[in-house]
């Protein structure tokens, strides 16, 4: 057997090794995993929707579990997500902080909440989108689950569904009994 006829097989073996490494790598990282998961949430501080003079930030929320949900009245998908959030708020196992993102007019956001119902414990506004940039938000809706130490435990890169709420959010919370009764929020 002449060795030159073995060359294709050799090249193929190398290729397979590369593919195996690639496959394992894609499992570790996950396609849409945010690099922030597992790290402390970047400090944020945003004005409240109802009263821009007041603000809420990561410092006030330390010691509590919360979900930070980016939405906007301009975002169709957020509307689809809205009902799930309203349902989720009934469980009252974790507070949902809404971030009204890139809405030029606060009145639109208030109108949306009064018409469709308000699933949020608190709503803050990020008109300029700086916090969204810090958190690597690509498109609304996006949500982050943050633990009492201020570490991002999970990021939902799209619409929260009843299934994902159950399996990705609630499943990550400590057993029900040990969760402190929902506080009145950061105000």
């Amino acid at each position, binding site marked *: *057997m*002449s060795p030159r*006829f*073995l060359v*294709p*097989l050799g090249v*193929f*073996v190398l*290729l*397979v*090794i*590369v*593919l*195996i*490494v*690639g*496959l394992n*790598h*894609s*499992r570790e990282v996950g*396609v849409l995993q945010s690099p922030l998961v597992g790290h402390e949430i970047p400090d944020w501080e945003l004005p409240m929707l109802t009263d821009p003079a007041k603000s809420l930030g990561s410092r006030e929320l330390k010691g509590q579990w919360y979900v930070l949900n980016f939405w906007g009245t301009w975002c*169709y*998908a957020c*509307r*689809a997500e809205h009902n799930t959030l309203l349902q989720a708020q009934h469980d009252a196992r974790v507070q949902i902080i809404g971030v009204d993102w890139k809405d*030029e007019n606060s009145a639109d956001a208030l109108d949306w909440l009064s018409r469709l119902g308000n699933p949020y414990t608190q709503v803050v506004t990020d008109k300029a989108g700086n916090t969204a940039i810090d958190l690597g938000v690509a498109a609304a809706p996006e949500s982050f689950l943050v633990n009492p130490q201020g570490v991002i435990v999970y990021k939902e890169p799209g*619409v929260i569904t009843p299934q994902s709420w159950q399996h990705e959010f609630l499943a990550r919370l400590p057993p029900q009994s040990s969760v402190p009764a929902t506080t009145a929020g950061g105000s």
Partner: protein
Amino acid sequence: MLPELGHFALVLALMLAGLQAFFGIVGPALGRDRWVAATTSAVAGQFVMVATAVGILVYAFVNFDFSVLYVAENSNSALPLMYRIAALWGAHEGSLLLWIFLLAVWTLAVAIVSRNLPQRFAARVLGVLGVLSFGFLLFTLATSDPFRRLIPAAADGRDLNPLLQDPGLAVHPPVLYTGYVGLAVAFSFACAAMLEGRMDPDWARWTRPWTTAAWAFLTCGITLGSWWSYYTLGWGGYWEWDPVENASFMPWLVATALIHSLAVTEKRGLFKSWTLLLAILGFSLSLLGTFLVRSGVLVSVHSFAADPDRGRFILIFLGLVIGGALTLYAWRAPLLKSNVGFDLLSRESFLLFNNILLVVAAATVLGGTLAPLIGDTMGQTSLSVGAPYFRPTFLLAMVPLLLLLSVGIHANWKRGRLEVAAKPLLVILAVAVILAAAAVFGVYGGRHALAITGFAIGGWIILSSLLDPIDRLRRHLSLSRAVLGMTLAHIGLAVAVIALSGVESYTSERDIALGTGASAQVGGYDFKLLGTRALEGPNYSATRATVVVSRDGRMITTLYPEVRQFWVQQQTRKVAGIYNLHGTDLFIALGDDLGAGRWSLRAQIRPLITLLWLGPLFMALGGALALSDRRYRLERAAARASASGAAAPGEAH
């Protein structure tokens, strides 16, 4: 009930594929002619079972059976009938079933046409196809069952991905897959020859039409995909060197090389082991493409939902099939020697250069596509390459290839003299350069090196391809369809080269923001936004803009670009407004609502783009023309006559 029958049909198909592989490979090896004869029955049975499964899934889609998970995930009560059928290949499970179905169709065709081939050889070909089919059926049943039930049934479905709700995309996957899967036939012919340990002198003639057919489908499939992304993705691009596009392009490059090396093997009995290797490589790259698209290893706009388990399965399958074939190659290819020589300037040499350059081009594309993975292996994170890598490296292989083409088609077999003296070729080259310069400086203006080179090369190929046919016509000699097909395909390539050089050099593009009644100028044309209005489609609402295009105050056309908002998936899809003016596209895509009646729009003027779709069409038609050549039909008739004449048991092969 029906979906369970569909699942059961797939199980039966798996068993029949196993039998087909066993009888087809073991039968000839042990010399059991009954087993050999049983192979064809297994093929027919497997085809019926796979067709039944496809029929049942289509029926479930057409009749809104949302108790089937795959239907619930990819259809909706508002989805029009055409897309309910196309939804079959709208996601991973169904498109895999389509793949298996097409493999069954090709296999059946091989079984029918190969009745005239030596029986044991034909059985081996079918046996290898059986192995492939078995692997894919097992993959479907183990990881991707399209008939899984959803209990309780969904009230309504989640709808087909809006990007796929388009006539262009409804037909793109079946055509592309037909090409991909068709390469399995050449692969199986190669494996069968290696299993026999010898290559029949007629082997290349048997393999050629199959390869040409698969190649023609692949050509159409890639072009359809490119056309679709051009008018729906909203950015007006036609080729992005995306991993999935590359995955279809690499097998095409290798299949093109294979067509040419098969010609040498058929005519001169040369390049045998090289031809075998190309036949293996072509289908291997198809399989690799499948792996890349479905495993989530590379991220792409086209990829299916990532699933590492599926990735692992395909990788094992890939390793067994390709690894097995290459091992067989290392073992058996050294036996296939040819002792004839050829001169440096003979047609054989030119075809050898053609093969080397095409394989180098495929290798550079492969390297770029896998760069992120190679980076991972080296411990580097997110190494990724794009057009700045692909374009120059690809051109480096393509330009010499195109330059050699014009000369190569006039070279003689074996002897190193040019059939037509060098003089007419040089005269033609001069004519092509003058025409190119006239087009560049006279019509388009500007001083683009790429345009003038591309136009000149394209013109040279067209003129020199026509040289021989015109000469034969003048002398009232016959022209075979094979030669006409080749000429047409080469002209198609030249047309595509001219189109690409023109589009790349002379596209004007601008992103503009317009209020109602305002206008902006792009590439000498005025685009005026008259306004927008809301529309309702069967399963979407849309915003449609009215844009008037004019030049020097004279109105040319009115375009209606749309943004469609699909209700169920809440996704948008753009439909660009395109007007074709003598081969130049005036293109406008609607962007975002900027508020206060202002909209962002993307306007493009793309000269010669029509030729970009026509070129590949000519190539595919050339392939079809070559397929219809008398030679293959006579061959078949002759074989039939001799087969019936010597129908003794254990007939010679």
